[in-house]
């Protein structure tokens, strides 16, 4: 459960987010859509405390995170999986070590249990026989899937993905978006995706939100959005 109300954010003189109000229900997949530079990533970064709101409130599971200090964040972030645009896997670790990292850091599980869990998650993201490879030896799509495995291995409850399809061809884009949907359902996560990939977002998301120049111009299910009478939204959805 995430509630955003009256969120404002500026960088020097540029207003990047203006009065964002958005509720995200437990277990829901929300896609935040918008053109490049609209403010999607900035919004997502507020949800993991990489940026602080100038004004407004963000609640995650009833806790007001705008008041959080870095120390509070370090513990809340164990409950959040975050998929970076380029994966951001450690390049000095193998795929196995990367995916096992959150478990090693935050649980006291034995090595056998960790191995079994990593293997299972890697199977879920359809990555096999690459445990001992380094990220630089993988293709872009494989890196994203490994990063996705790392993001959900703690069974975190929240999954945030920044532009999961960027840099991928249409087939890989479709695959990774389907995978995000399957994983979200399997791990029952509340999932937020930013994307400019209209087609796949409409296919997998329960709700969509459209941002233009830092303003939320439309939100709802795919059905609801089709009936919104706004020139920009109509143009955007074409």
């Amino acid at each position: 459960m995430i509630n955003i109300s009256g969120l404002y954010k500026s960088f020097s003189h540029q207003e990047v987010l203006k009065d964002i109000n958005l509720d995200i229900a437990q277990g829901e997949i929300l896609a935040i859509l918008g053109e490049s530079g609209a403010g999607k990533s900035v919004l997502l970064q507020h949800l993991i405390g990489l940026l602080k709101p100038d004004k407004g409130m963000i609640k995650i599971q009833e806790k007001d995170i705008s008041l959080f200090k870095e120390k509070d964040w370090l513990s809340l972030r164990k409950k959040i999986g975050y998929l970076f645009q380029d994966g951001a896997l450690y390049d000095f670790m193998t795929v196995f070590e990367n995916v096992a990292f959150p478990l090693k850091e935050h649980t006291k599980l034995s090595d056998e249990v960790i191995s079994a869990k990593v293997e299972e998650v890697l199977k879920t993201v359809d990555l096999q026989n690459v445990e001992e490879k380094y990220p630089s030896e993988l293709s872009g799509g494989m890196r994203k899937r490994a990063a996705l495995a790392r993001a959900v291995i703690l069974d975190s409850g929240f999954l945030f993905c920044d532009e999961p399809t960027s840099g991928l061809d249409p087939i890989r884009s479709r695959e990774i978006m389907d995978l995000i949907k399957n994983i979200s359902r399997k791990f029952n996560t509340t999932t937020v995706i930013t994307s400019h990939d209209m087609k796949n977002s409409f296919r997998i998301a329960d709700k969509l939100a459209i941002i233009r120049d830092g303003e939320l111009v439309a939100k709802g299910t795919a059905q609801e959005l089709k009936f919104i009478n706004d020139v920009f939204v109509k143009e955007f959805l074409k």
Partner: protein
Amino acid sequence: MNRSNHSFSFLGQFFRHAAEGLAGLGNALFFLGSVIKNIARGKIRFGEVIKQINEQGMQSVVVIALTSLASGVVLALQGYVTMSRFGAKEKVASLVALSLVRELGPVFSSLVFSGKAGARMTAELGAMNVNNQITATRVMGVDPIEFLVVPRMVACFLVLPILVVFSEVIGIMGGYLIGVTDANMPGAFYINQTLRSLDYVDFFSGFIKTFFFAILISWTCCYQGFMTTGGSLGVGKYTTKAVALAYILVVVSNTILTKIILTFWG
């Protein structure tokens, strides 16, 4: 009119650079503060420290050995010529040992170390930063200072002094080679001269500086890595900057430390 405008903008630029420099120093001190806080709380990953000691040591040991061997050889060659003029050629062993142990071993090894292991620290952390791996560490609920910086700095603090002692031994061996071949001294005499001329004060007055250099080098290089932006170009830029800064810090702090040490221990 134009000229006053120029000088005005020059002054403006000067003050802006000065302000940026001060802010940068503040951030760098804050960075060091977080490192110290982690160490004080015992948050040291010993496995990572061992790995780093290995990497940093392995990386610089060959070049340090070469540098100090060459320094020892050159010191002995030059020393033999100059000491002969004063009719004190048997003092060559002392000259070599004292120069290496009091000054050249710590300083040369630290400079070489900055260029090898220091550059690597900045390049590694810088590349991780531009690929979001440092942000990813925070997002996974792990303090990147504790995970990435503390092991590098602790390892440097432990490994640089070892490298310095090693370099001093190698340098003295270089001097020995010249002493027994070029200068025709008996080997036992050369070694005896070396040991007799070295006081523990000589050794420690150089050795102590090593710990300061270790902190300055690893602090600068890790901090510049964390500051790196601008993709692979940025990694190159910040790495060069870090090494240049480390050189300057070693050389400048060495003069200050030498003055202080000589005042108390001359």
